[in-house]
């Protein structure tokens, strides 16, 4: 196995900063979506526990769902950017996409990714190593 290609540390850190923001925004957006879904289908679903029905939550849902969809797409694009800069394997890209679809997981996923970025920048050669030397 040849030595790994050097990473561009500056580009990697910039990409991670962007991914981090997207990760947190997506996490909050997903939680909001979960609340809306609970209100729409459980509290005002008209079945099982509660009998009341409210068209208000249908409307809220029809507004927020596409917005959340767009936020998730931006999240995926920024995850893809980070994944390319870090020269990670394909399974890790799928993992990053997966972080964004489970409520609350994206916050932990962001911390996990931060550790991976740090350890990889430590372990692997970077373009900036030569400048420092």
């Amino acid at each position, binding site marked *: 196995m*040849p*030595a*790994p*290609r050097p990473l561009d540390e500056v580009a990697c850190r910039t990409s991670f900063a962007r991914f981090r923001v997207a990760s947190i925004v997506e996490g909050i957006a997903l939680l909001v979506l979960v609340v809306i879904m609970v209100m729409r289908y459980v509290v005002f679903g008209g079945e099982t526990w509660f009998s009341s029905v409210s068209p208000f939550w249908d409307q809220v849902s029809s507004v927020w769902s596409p917005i959340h*969809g767009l936020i998730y797409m931006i999240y*995926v694009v920024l995850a*893809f950017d980070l994944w*390319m800069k870090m*020269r990670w*394997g*394909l*399974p890790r*890209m*799928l993992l990053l996409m997966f972080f964004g679809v489970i409520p609350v997981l994206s916050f932990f996923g962001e911390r996990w990714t931060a550790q991976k970025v740090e350890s990889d920048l430590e372990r692997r050669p970077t373009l900036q190593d030569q400048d420092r030397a």
Partner: protein
Amino acid sequence: MLRVALRPRFLGLLALMLVATLVCGLLATWQWDRAHRAITSKAAGPMELGDIRDVLDVGDAVTNAIAGDTVTAAGTYVPGEQVVVPGRNIGGTEAVLIVTAMMVETEDATQVRLPVARGWLPAEELTGADGQIDPSLAPAPPQGEVEITGRLEASEAASGGVSGGVASEVATPLLVNEWGSPMYSGFVSLEEPGGGLQPLPAAESEFSRGLDWQNIGYSLQWVLFGAFFLYLWWRSVRAAHLDEIADRREALERMLEDSKTDASSSTTSPTTVPATAGPTPDKDV
């Protein structure tokens, strides 16, 4: 690059990505079908749903799945509970709809009001001497127990109100305040009205007009996601391939440099070095 792509690791990943793309494709077709649902589900014409009490519970919405289908009902018209809805244009004629409450007895013996659009008349036939619509000119409903057959329609959206027997729309939120509850949340439009009335044309909605563009959009999004998985696979193959080329080039450069320093001190010919340096590069560099 093909040689990199055909490695077991990348072939395995390709299989995984193909499954993901396939799932996205299925989801895309599902949304595509949903977008065309209105066209396919109503293609066979209105369905006979039978008695309204078996079709709709009080308080249940008249959904797109059943709106426009035919139902029957038995009950008595309430003589005092009738409104006219003016301002309609039916085939170029200014029309006034006549809507009367019908009392239907449900299984648990409650009397439920069902608004029945008994038909329409040209506006001039209902215009009084003062030039205003006069609800008292509308024909009275038949008395006693009657059986009706008609098209089930969803309530129209209320914009105005009811005053003096004139309603702005055939909207159950308006009528329930005028006549009282319980009331079905849709209305029945008579197939064959009697007494000189004309039958109403079928109501049109965004749904009944056909394609649902939101679902078309979702369908395209799934196609996009599916393509993205394949693109990811191709990117990872390409990255591996480019890394290997760069590694080989570095190895070659290092060897050349080594051979230069060797050449100055020994008799080895530098021209033989590149032939032995590193593995054979791919042809599609």
